[in-house]
């Protein structure tokens, strides 16, 4: 009995951690838009949001089923369809953006994920990345086959990386203190506080964790 109660409590706490369980559809779409914009402007690949994407897609499916039952004369039907298209645009744009980063930074992304506890790639993305890497390596092997044993591994040690110092625009969702700004002159760093609601142009490196945590969002 006690154990059962514990389990139930644990489940509830788990659900609490997983914020999207309590989301209304409107909040879900809002969240989807936020991760889309963040992914668009972050130089690196952000942690995947598979659950959000799946939830949004199932909302769309449910809506599509609903729409089919409506008579075509109903003027509301057009709005339902257009909203579906609008949301679909956000989801596809988000996933395209991620694929683009995965392809560009493939070695980097796979290596980082190996060394990290939490995977940034979804399972499907990881499969895609591995296949892409394999195809790329094969192509390069083929291009250097004219002389086996050449030192052509330079590209693997100098693999393409995102520029983490890229400048980004952001908006603070809550008060944030002590963001380190690297002035590019050795130890001469500056510390900045950002008030909730204010907007900044700043180097991504110092704020990447806060964006992943959700204290800041890119704009």
């Amino acid at each position: 009995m006690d154990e059962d109660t514990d389990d139930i409590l644990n489940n509830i706490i788990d659900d609490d951690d997983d914020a999207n369980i309590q989301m209304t559809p409107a909040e879900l779409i809002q969240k989807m838009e936020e991760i889309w914009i963040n992914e668009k402007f972050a130089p690196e690949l952000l942690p995947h949001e598979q659950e959000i994407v799946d939830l949004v897609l199932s909302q769309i499916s449910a809506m599509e089923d609903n729409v089919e039952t409506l008579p075509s004369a109903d003027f509301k039907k057009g709005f339902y369809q257009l909203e579906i298209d609008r949301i679909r645009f956000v989801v596809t744009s988000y996933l395209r953006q991620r694929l683009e980063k995965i392809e560009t930074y493939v070695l980097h992304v796979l290596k980082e994920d190996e060394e990290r506890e939490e995977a940034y790639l979804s399972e499907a993305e990881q499969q895609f990345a591995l296949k892409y890497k394999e195809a790329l390596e094969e192509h390069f092997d083929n291009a250097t086959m004219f002389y086996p044993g050449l030192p052509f591994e330079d590209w693997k040690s100098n693999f393409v990386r995102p520029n983490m110092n890229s400048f980004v625009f952001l908006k603070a969702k809550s008060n944030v203190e002590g963001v380190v700004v690297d002035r590019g002159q050795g130890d001469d760093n500056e510390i900045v506080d950002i008030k909730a609601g204010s907007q900044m142009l700043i180097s991504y490196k110092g704020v990447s964790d806060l964006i992943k945590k959700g204290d800041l969002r890119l704009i």
Partner: protein
Amino acid sequence: MFGEKAYLLIKELDRNRDSLPPYNTELLSEIHNEVKQLVTENQEDANVSEQSRLVENVSYVPTLKIRHAAIKRNIRCILAYHYNRLKCLKTIRWQFGSILPPEVKANLSQAEIDFFSKYSSSLMQYMRGIGDDGGVNLAVNLKPPKSLYIEVRCVVDYGQLELTDGSALLLKKNSRHHLPRTECEELIRQGVLEHVV
């Protein structure tokens, strides 16, 4: 100077940033020959180097270093050539779909054709796996939608187009149609239809 041919290869890339000229087999094989020669010479001199250093006090090290730098440079150019062509090839996959237009195909090496089909199939597999509902086509919905229907003009004699509702219409050159946006987005991108605003 070493690496001049490789430089020509990169200049060719630079001139054709958004297109794929014929795979330059000829120039590549000249670069291959330069690399082979550099490697052979370094092999020979590396063997001499050990002995002559003791006997004649002649060092081959600077020569070896220079040739080695040249080998690395040539390889960098060869790989950059292949890499940047692949980037173009991927764009073609997104824009034309999974079937290579014959004019494009004629300009590719066999390895590039192989890469294209591998890329294409892993992309398809990825897209089919999105969501629980048979997948999502990521090659459409490229722009924010404004309305369900759009006005299009047909640019070429395309022939019959079947719509998802089962109806069909004939796309003749210069004919105008009022169509669901989702049904003609790909045809617009392929240059068959033109969006009239």
